[in-house]
């Protein structure tokens, strides 16, 4: 471990608040992927300054004094942006004691704020970082109520300061999961949803639910005596009904997606994002016309349940062709699989009758497009000048199965790629024991 890596891991362990200083870095002789949908640029250069992208592409001049990394033909891309995932909410998903994904035994739903629950030192963060993921939208994907609570946008740096934006969006479930949570039917979902929005709107009308964290407003106004929602839940929904906070809607069935879009007729200010959208291709024209973007589960092609009978891997390609803004997401606890999913969408372009994405579109679907859907396309997600210096160097085409991550930078700071898995690999490359038991090799 280099002194620099030692410093980084020490910083991680102590969770020091001061971030490591970003230096000027120039990555030369690289195949550069901007991430905006354009094709890769051979023989390009990426320059980072002050933690941000200064320039990227062909013919970029290396500033004097910059640390220069010769990529020797390797690929350089923006860090992967994965929305929606649940990493950071558990150490081991199946170990209940370590799992903060859901809170169905508690009194709150919409009011839940995930940001204090995120553990930046969870191995899933470290492993995902080593897979090239630099930003993620962490969402409550398992919830006992229709509202899951407020998700957070995080970076995956090892500085112990993960939050890019707390309370970035609210999540609600329609469909079968929502029906179960609402009391047993989709009709109940829509009643619960509308009642909640009406209570939030009423609270807003009375001057409630204001401020950066609307739950914490002092001298909150009185509410009608027949309110169903807790005060915290109602306050948390005020930014949703007033359009200050996006509403992520989990919906798979075509009819459920239509019903989600129809919400905008009753609640004009809603800023919707559809999550999942297995049957999105069946309502692609309506989605495109509405301008509502989609974070699609990439390769669903099985009728996993009765709300996914139309599942096909061509879903994303068909939606994109219809003009829907579609990013990849909603694949749970392993965001490091994003490149493989994106690569598969490229493979579909060679299958007769199938729809996929071209290479540039596919990479954008796991970088700039989800960043834009998160409302942060001007902050990270591509290598355009001024955006965060989130950069990954790969030993080959990043979407290809055989490729791997060589270096990762977040906000211009080079990150450690050492984790539980890499340490195990190094210990057991040779399985037999030496002079001392394995436990002494570290």
């Amino acid at each position: 471990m280099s002194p620099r890596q030692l410093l980084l891991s020490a910083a991680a362990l102590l969770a020091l608040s001061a971030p490591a200083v970003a230096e000027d870095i120039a990555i030369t002789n690289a195949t550069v992927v901007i991430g905006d949908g354009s094709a890769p640029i051979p023989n390009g250069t990426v320059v980072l300054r002050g933690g941000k992208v200064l320039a990227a592409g062909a013919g970029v001049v290396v500033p004097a004094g910059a640390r220069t990394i010769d990529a020797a033909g390797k690929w350089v891309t923006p860090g992967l942006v994965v929305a929606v995932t649940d990493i950071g909410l558990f150490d081991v998903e199946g170990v209940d004691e370590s799992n903060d994904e859901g809170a169905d035994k508690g009194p709150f739903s919409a009011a839940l704020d995930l940001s204090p629950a995120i553990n930046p030192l969870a191995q899933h963060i470290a492993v995902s970082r080593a897979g090239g993921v630099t930003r993620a939208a962490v969402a409550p994907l398992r919830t006992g109520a229709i509202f899951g609570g407020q998700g957070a946008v995080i970076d995956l740096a090892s500085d112990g300061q993960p939050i890019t934006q707390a309370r970035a969006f609210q999540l609600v479930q329609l469909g079968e999961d929502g029906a179960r949570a609402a009391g047993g039917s989709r009709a109940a979902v829509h009643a619960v949803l509308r009642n909640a929005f009406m209570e939030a709107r009423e609270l807003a009308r009375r001057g409630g639910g204001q401020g950066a964290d609307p739950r914490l407003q002092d001298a909150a106004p009185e509410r009608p005596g027949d309110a169903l929602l807790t005060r915290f839940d109602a306050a948390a929904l005020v930014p949703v009904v007033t359009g200050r906070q996006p509403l992520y809607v989990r919906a798979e069935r075509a009819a459920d997606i239509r019903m989600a879009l129809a919400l905008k007729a009753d609640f004009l200010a809603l800023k919707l994002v559809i999550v999942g959208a297995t049957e999105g291709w069946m309502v692609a024209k309506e989605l495109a016309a509405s301008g509502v973007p989609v974070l699609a589960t990439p390769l669903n092609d099985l009728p996993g349940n009765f709300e996914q009978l139309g599942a096909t891997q061509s879903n994303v390609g068909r939606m994109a062709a219809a003009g829907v803004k579609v990013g990849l997401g909603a694949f749970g606890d392993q965001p490091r699989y994003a490149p493989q999913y994106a690569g598969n969408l490229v493979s579909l372009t060679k299958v007769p009758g199938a729809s996929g994405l071209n290479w540039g579109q596919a990479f954008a679907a796991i970088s700039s497009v989800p960043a834009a859907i998160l409302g942060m396309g001007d902050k990270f997600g591509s290598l355009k000048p001024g955006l965060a210096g989130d950069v990954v160097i790969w030993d080959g085409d990043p979407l290809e199965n055989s490729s791997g991550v060589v270096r990762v930078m977040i906000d211009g700071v080079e990150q450690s790629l050492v984790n539980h898995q890499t340490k195990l690999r190094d210990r057991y490359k040779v399985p037999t024991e030496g002079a001392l038991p394995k436990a002494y090799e570290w």
Partner: protein
Amino acid sequence: MLAPKLLAGMAALALVASPGLAEKKKKDEPSAAAKAAREYNKNPFPSTYKPYPGEPTALTGATVFDGAGGRIENGIVLLADGKVVAVGGADLAIPANYRRVDAAGKFVTPGIIDIHSHLGDYPSPSVQAHSDGNEATAPTTPEVWAEHSVWPQDPGFSRALANGGVTSLQILPGSANLMGGRSVTLKNVYSRTIQGMKFPDAPYGLKMACGENPKRVYGAKGRMPSTRMGNIAVNRMTWMKASEYRAKRNAGKLETRDLAMETLAGVLDGEILIQNHCYRADEMALVLDMAKEFGYKVTAFHHATEAYKIGDLLKAAGTCSAIWADWWGFKMESYDAIPENAGILQKAGACVVIHSDDENGIQRLNQEAAKAQGDARRAGIEVSDAEVIRWLTLNPAMAMGIHQQTGSLEKGKMADVVLWNGNPLSVYSRPDKVWVDGALLFDAADPKRRPVSDFELGQVGEGDVK
């Protein structure tokens, strides 16, 4: 380890050598009941699978991975009468009556084989009414047979064929039980009946499971096992009973049949292969000793996320590791999984099989293997493409006991063949055509060669590309 058959032979020898044989023999003459308990029909649900019609076909100009570690550039593969007729280079003579398929720039492999699938016993849609994979009412249920749970209309079979090039697969009971029941091996061909899918003459497997699942499921019911030591104890008590049963059977002293014991005795006879779900290295080592104690062989550990820690032990035992490329961290016993698992095992000389255990993963076994190859390479372990293809073909065939019939492109073997539109280890490649026993059952260019299960008829997406 003494082979089960050898053990049986020694028992017979002891009988012959004992004094007063004539009198004893008369006394020990098996009763009619004992005869019935011993000479029962071992195949009461026989395969009715018949290959579909094919035509003599020559694949020309392809890169051929033969599944046994061989690679031929600009190769030719000849199929006729459901069998592989010849595999060779550009100079191989093609008989006049063969339909030629120009495979230049494309790749040919044997049909992909998934040793660990729950298609049919946990089918899509995965509604409660379809949940038929775990008979989780007792910790050991060797009496149940997966073939009695498999729904032949699972849409998943078609996806595995069209996107994954899967031509044979083993359907296992789930892992809630220590002994979950018999597996069934299928040809990936739709049929009205499960018998119509059964791979002819494939041996049965017995699904076993270690670790978290059995102790959690039965511990939660307030019964044994609730711990890992309970897992091993229940297993050993059951094997003791099975050994006793088998000795009695061999001595002609059984009065009644016992469905559970017939399966376990079949394992001890070496006729039924052990397919053992097990994650942790320490538990696999204990299971190997338990197998020695009772004289059976563990054919494959499944999942085996820590197999890389004991490659030497697994090699010595001749036990395969059927693994994912890079699943990790979803449950406690998967916390030490590493993506170099396959590479380290290969380097140790142990048998590697890439499996899916997943209705989506089965569509991308080729990609999973390629990821494992890349991770191995970065760890300094080079595994050739041709060897990696073996992880998906001949190795699983061997671990399922069907390697004489399929798993590699050898003269006389079943013509289970995939033509890929590019290198199958690339994320950008997909099956172009798939033959099962020489019958063209998927053709990307021909919507009529796209199977649609009964379930999907009249539903949105019927006949769509998947």
